[in-house]
């Protein structure tokens, strides 16, 4: 149970770290789909289900995941603590029970040692609660993989578990050693102190210590007579006049003292830390940034705005063909697509003999008639040049293309058509970004039939005139 919760947290964390570089859209689509599938099948959309789902899709992978390795390493640490605790427990109890017949086993020392064990157990718990990790340097050296943030947060508890396990093994093995010693040896317990404590005071201490089991095993609560009888002084000779069996009557107290203050607290704290690990692992998962992100992805519909299409490369390349030419002198002009007949400067129109309108609202029949009329005029000495004035900002359409194509086929061969794209505002010339579409149009006709000319601005024309003069 403990390891399952921990493994879930570590597996989840590893998966989140692994997917950090995945596109957000992909993750959203995938996880939303999983959530919808859970709703459909009425199954919970939790972290376990999510990981199982992903693992199922990916197939059987490496069993020896970082989570498994981490948990295995902590198990090994626990086992090492347990073995060390067991060995240390046997050795310690043998040391405490050293008795050669000529002296007593000092209960004061035993009680002090037991209280030290209680203190150590408390310190371990406090250290885990505060998250202090004095052993971190050692752990870093032992670990074969770097610890993740999720694992780092769990380490104080895992270390507390190992320490409590070691403490429990220590307590149990030392208790076992005590029992064996009780069976195979005659142990003489007594109490001794330099202080002028009266036996009644010591009885109060032992009675307070024996409070937990006083109802359970009254014989294990020492009375005043036993306390009075078993006080000894090292300077006094021999075993005095107390019966030899009287010294051994302390063993139930010692047994219960050890069980209640060394073994039981460690067992309770070990169980507590186990529960805490599960709780903390679950809480760490709930507060994991990746879990919040996953929940969001599962709860939020995926909105695809249709942005997958990419034709950015299809944009026309910069025009590299012929540039515009100077405006030729012409006797014929066509105003295309609604261009007014006063759009050209007087200097350009002074030689015009024939002005026509085409395109725009004019009918196709009217356009054909215009082309025939111009063909006749060209044949009758109206020169070779024809001007076609257009709105520069309106792109050349297929209709203009058709019109020019028809003109090329109808007009006498030396005829040339000059496109004059006008600027939207009256101040020419046409803006630079509108010119390439007209230059491209001239390229579509053979034998230089179409050229492009621009109306220069009056200021530029005047400046050019002055320079020429």
């Amino acid at each position, binding site marked *: 149970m403990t390891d399952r919760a921990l493994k879930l947290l570590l597996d989840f964390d590893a998966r989140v770290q692994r997917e950090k570089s995945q*596109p*957000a859209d992909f993750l959203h689509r995938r996880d*939303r789909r999983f959530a*919808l599938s859970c709703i459909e099948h009425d199954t919970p959309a939790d972290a376990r289900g999510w990981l199982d789902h992903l693992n199922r899709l990916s197939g059987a992978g490496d069993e020896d995941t970082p989570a498994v390795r981490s948990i295995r390493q902590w198990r090994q640490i626990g086992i090492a603590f347990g073995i060390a605790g067991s060995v240390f427990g046997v050795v310690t109890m043998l040391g405490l029970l050293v008795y050669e017949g000529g002296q007593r086993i000092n209960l004061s020392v035993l009680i002090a040692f037991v209280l030290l064990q209680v203190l150590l157990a408390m310190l371990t718990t406090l250290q885990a609660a505060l998250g202090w990790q004095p052993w971190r340097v050692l752990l870093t050296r032992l670990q074969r993989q770097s610890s993740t*943030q999720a694992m780092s947060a769990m380490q104080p508890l895992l270390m507390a578990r190992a320490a409590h396990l070691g403490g429990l093994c220590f307590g149990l093995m030392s208790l076992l050693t005590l029992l064996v010693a009780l069976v195979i040896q005659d142990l003489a317990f007594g109490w001794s102190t330099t202080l002028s404590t009266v036996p009644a005071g010591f009885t109060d201490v032992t009675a307070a210590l024996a409070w937990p089991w006083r109802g359970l095993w009254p014989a294990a609560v020492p009375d005043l007579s036993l306390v009075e009888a078993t006080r000894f002084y090292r300077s006094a000779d021999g075993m005095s006049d107390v019966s030899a069996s009287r010294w051994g009557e302390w063993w139930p107290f010692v047994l219960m003292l050890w069980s209640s203050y060394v073994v039981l607290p460690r067992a309770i704290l070990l169980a507590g830390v186990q529960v805490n690990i599960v709780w903390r692992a679950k809480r*760490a998962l709930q*507060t*994991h*940034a990746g879990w*919040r*992100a996953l929940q*969001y992805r599962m709860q*939020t*519909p*995926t*909105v*695809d*705005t*249709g*942005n*997958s*299409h*990419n*034709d*950015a*490369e*299809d*944009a*026309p390349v910069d025009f590299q063909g012929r540039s515009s030419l100077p405006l030729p002198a012409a006797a014929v002009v066509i105003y295309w*697509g*609604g261009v007014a007949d006063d759009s050209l400067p007087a200097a350009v129109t002074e030689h015009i003999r024939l002005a026509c309108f085409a*395109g*725009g*609202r004019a*009918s*196709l029949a009217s356009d054909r008639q215009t082309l025939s009329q111009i063909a006749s005029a060209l044949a009758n000495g109206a020169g070779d040049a024809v001007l076609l004035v257009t*709105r520069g*900002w*309106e*792109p*050349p*359409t*297929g*209709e203009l293309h*058709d019109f020019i194509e028809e003109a090329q086929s109808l007009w006498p061969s030396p005829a040339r058509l000059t496109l004059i794209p006008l600027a*939207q*505002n009256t101040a020419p010339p046409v803006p630079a*970004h*509108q010119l*390439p*579409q007209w230059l*491209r149009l001239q390229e579509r006709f053979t034998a230089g039939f179409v050229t492009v000319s621009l109306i220069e601005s009056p200021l530029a024309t005047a400046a050019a005139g002055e320079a020429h003069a």
Partner: protein
Amino acid sequence: MPDTPVFAVVGHPNKGKSSVVATLSQNDAIAIALEPGTTRRRHRYPLSVDGEVLYVLEDTPGFQRPRRVLEWLKAHSASATDRAQTVAAFVHEHRDGARFTDECELLAPLVEGAGIIYVVDGSVPYSPEDEIEMTILRWTGRPSLALINSIGSDDHSEAWKAALGQFFQVVRRFDALRAPFDQHLSLLRAFGQLEPQWEVPLQRAVHFLSDQRLARQVKAASLITDALSDMLSYRELSTLSEVQLAQGEEGAIEDSLRRRWLARQRQREQDLRGDIENLYQHTHLRRQETTLQWHSDNDLFSEGSRRAWGVSRRYLVTAGFGAGAVGGVGLDVLTLGASLGLGALAGGIAGGTGAYLFGDRLPLPVMHWGPLRRGLKTATFGPVQDSQFGYIVLGRAVDHWWHVSHRNHAGRDLLDLPPASDHWLESLDSGSRRTLQRGLDSCRKKRRLENALRADVEAVIAAALALYGRRQNRFTVD
């Protein structure tokens, strides 16, 4: 007629049809050029939620031969009742030919049941010649809406509005390049008004898009928090052998570490910018990143950035006092209040004094030399110890976020990030300032930001984004 609303975006060539589609579909990879004929085929841009298509936008080529088309239609129609059928017949007859390719691509979705979104350029004068196209569209009998998009700077929209009102059910102005997000949603609602059965899917689409917008803001705050945490806690390490130490290479190592540290910080900031741009589906902006226009003296570590994005000494003192006081409260708790709040006071004074004395400098992180162990010595550069650095990173990140989140996908110009002129973070409430300061301090002291504090800092940054957005929008309106 299709169940899902389909809107064909049609019009004269080069009037911004693709720009409208790019903005509404949040796609910056649609070819948009100032020359006609960039769009040669119709293309569908569906908006789908969990795989369910709510509506489809269809980009189409522009009219090339409207007079010929109308002439054909008139020649083949007997009365007003067969006009839609005549248009369908036109498409059927010419779809395999070359002459009317564009018209067939344009009219086919309308024949299939799409609504009409007719786009005109409001910056050029209205011309009666355009009525031929409008007449053809009216022949299809489809529900229609006209959009006045302004490509240039002139405004002829009133004339357009008057004319379009005679041909279309709804006429709206929509600047595909500059329209704020609210207008996108408003336009989609208008699409839903064209047919009664289209209202619900379009309302749902608006709802989901609004939610997506909010969610992106939250996600942006999360990305910025991650970057702040990374940049403030980053350390550059190097290990020297005894031989190198004897040769006096400490100086060279320090230089190298400093350069690597600076380069990594700049790269991390660029990564954040890329993440934010991807979040808002500006994927092509990223390709132009190497040519991003940077204002001179606007680098992450420049004095210009410090002036633009650093906070005042007063801000640092108050935030430092608050953050220190929060730390000092721990002492009061440990003494069960016996310290009478002196812990909080002492912490606050320490935090505030530190901020006052050191807060207006931007020293780069100092070098740390570890002890000599087994003939090796480790040199560490970072993490940065200056409070201002966090505010500079944050200020630049939030400003970049604002520009990206308010950029329409029709935009093809380079992203321009001018330096700001106001210390907007100072408008945050005192609680948020304290949380932010604690977060920045924590990043500097520890390698990682704790989950709970991270969530608090993320919430403050989300609030800061909203605050900055409001301020910028107010400036824009003013």
